């Protein structure tokens, strides 16, 4: 049995006193009997200086300016989320349509070139629009035919004076009629070919003529 020498575990009578215990000295950190503790120290809050009329006027001007900026074209808001459920207030709350930056009257020279697309409206002047010209298709087909038939080329030359649109419309109209006729009938073509239409006589005849079989 050690008599105070060494620092072994020693006898059970000896208790180690922690620093926290010595500090507390029997005091409890928990409130007894539900006493309320002051979360914050007592602080004498001094009321601020009352605003003068001039300061109120300045504050009003600032608020009006801020409201003006928030309703202007410069306040960029993300698009509103799509509503899944229709609400009663949607009937009476209609947000005002925001103007685009493209309607802004400003000096474009102040901005770099890469931002001009956001400020300038797209101009359609001078831009060649693709106008459908049915005559162009007709001409292409006829030109292809001209290689075999000269009359097709003359016809296209004479047709050049006519307006392209009229011809185009006529062409379209004819095509539409044909389509209508075709669409109205499921049985457009006989899908069964029994060989009646085939003219096999040409295969053996070198002349390619229409002579009969002997």
């Amino acid at each position, binding site marked *: 049995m050690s008599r105070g020498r060494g620092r072994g575990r020693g006898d059970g009578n000896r208790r180690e006193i922690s620093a926290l215990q010595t500090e507390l000295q029997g005091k409890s950190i928990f409130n007894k009997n539900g006493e309320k503790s002051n979360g914050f120290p007592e602080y004498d809050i001094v009321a601020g200086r009352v605003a003068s009329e001039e*300061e109120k006027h300045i504050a009003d001007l600032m608020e009006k*300016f801020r409201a003006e900026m928030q309703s202007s074209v410069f306040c960029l808001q993300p698009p509103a989320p799509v509503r899944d459920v229709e609400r009663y207030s949607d009937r009476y709350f209609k947000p005002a349509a925001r103007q685009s930056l493209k309607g802004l009257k400003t000096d474009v020279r102040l901005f770099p070139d890469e931002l001009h697309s956001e400020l300038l409206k797209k101009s359609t002047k001078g831009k060649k629009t693709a106008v459908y010209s049915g005559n162009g298709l007709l001409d292409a087909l006829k030109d292809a035919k001209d290689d075999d038939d000269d009359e097709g080329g003359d016809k296209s030359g004479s047709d050049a004076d006519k307006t392209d649109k009229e011809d185009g419309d006529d062409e379209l109209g004819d095509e539409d009629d044909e389509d209508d006729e075709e669409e109205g009938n499921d049985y457009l073509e006989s899908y069964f070919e029994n060989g009646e239409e085939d003219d096999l006589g040409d295969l053996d005849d070198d002349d390619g003529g229409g002579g009969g079989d002997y």
Partner: protein
Amino acid sequence: MYTQQVGLCKQIVREHYGPIVEAVVAVLAREGRLSLRQLVPRAKQTPRNVRQALAVLIQHGIVTHAMSKEGSLMVTYYSVCLKNILRLQRAGLYLALVEERMGSEGLAVFRTIMASGVSTIGNVCEVLGVAEMGKAAKLKFNAVVAKLVRDRYIIAVNTVDTITKADRIMQAEVSEVEKLTIPPTAKELLAIRRKILEREEEEYQSSNVVGIKRRASADISADHLSKLHMGADGRAVAFSSHGTGEQNGHSHANGEQQQVDSVDDKQFFRAYFDRLDVFLRNQQVVNYFTDKYNAGAGALLKAILRVTEQHTRTCRVKLSETVSSTQIFQHVSPDAPLVDAIDTSKDMFHQKYDASGNPVVEPSSKELSRERRSEIIFALLEVIHTDSSGIVAKVDERGTGQYRVNFERAAITLRERCVDALVHEKFGSVHARLLRVLRDKQKLDEKVVAQATMLPIAACRERLHDLALAGVIDTIEIPRSADRNPSRMFYLWYINSDKQMRSAMRFVYQAMSNVIERGAKEASARALLVAKTRRQDVIADPSLLTDGERKELQNLARIKQRLAVASVRLDSMLLVVYDTDPHSADLQLLQ
């Protein structure tokens, strides 16, 4: 740049321009100069949104751009100017100042230009509906517009104004260096840079104001004189008989060939905030003298500063032009409270009595005779120029004397006053007393400080460390021995001005940020109610709101007003601490 400053700027931009623009500003403030390609992924917005945001920011002068060559490509880089964002918070002060000096017409014009960033006078007329106004109203409007341009409340915009200033200066420097045959020496380079900066000052000081066209009209006969009307400033304004697109401004009625000012309808203008900051700073100086002495002294300072305003371009100017006492006398307002401003009698206890034995009562300020008025003004001038702040200095003793305003001293005085108020508010009167002692005595040991402030040494040490933690004061070490042993050193407490200003600025930015956040919190707590007030049926019939809802809305309006007033007061502090600091001129140079 401070964290609190960036946070405040983001909140201000969000309030005025929305979350998309805020995202772009946040990236530019954090990262610095960026091109569009670098900006889009960092801002986490679509390219179109970023382009629109940049267009909005350039329109309002918050972002500038500059081209830079990278290999074979020319890339555009964008930079943000935080100072111009903070000016949005000062809008109320600017508008009130313009309204006071230019009237409601001037306020309408200025507010329209400020809201649109950059605008022509023609656009302003369209917005304000000038075409539907009567003849007299149109004349008054034209006179006000000409005065706004002539006095530089609004300034003409050039294409170089949206180019980053640092790049502009570098390009000007490069073009100057290219003119030389041999590479410049360091001295020559400095001279070139100074010349470039002075050129900008000369353009401002020149009598030709960009945007004003001065033309000589025909001799005015008696018939024409009947058509002259009184303008907003009390001077004659000529009636325009020419076609549309031209507006007449101020005319000098001298009976001979007259110079008539007209404002170019197609020229773009923007608000010139540097000039307005000068007026606000001058107002602060007037308030200082009014608080220290009386309203009469304030009125006299106001007259002196009005005379010097014409040549004071920005708050960075350190000394004003010399002003004679005759000029001051002419500019003192007739209703300035001069009667009880100063006692000029030889015996201050002597009461004057008239023949019937009644005490003599001084007449009101407006009824004062010219001699009595000049006597009071000269006596006040003597007191003001001997003030310990050294703001007004007497330059020439000849004749009635020439005076000059030292804006550098004014800035230092105003800043000290501001910091004293901040410390008093944040820590208390004892800490403020400590600060004043250190300011008077410069560097002191803590024992001497305790004696001077009549505090126990432990309490004094605690308070000194509180101030040091806040960055208001600092220590300097004086070693006793060559080995600089810390235990054998003298530690003296002193005020480090730069550090003090930086901590004051951080405090003001944080306070302004808190005010904005509190306003947003109060609004969000009543978001449903505010949304209800925006419904069309409620707008048409306000009786749909209950009494409780109306009371809550009034409460919200009251809270918003208190917060706005707090914001105005904090911004006045920021003007004193930051914008009027001559040492921050170098920092502001590139902004």
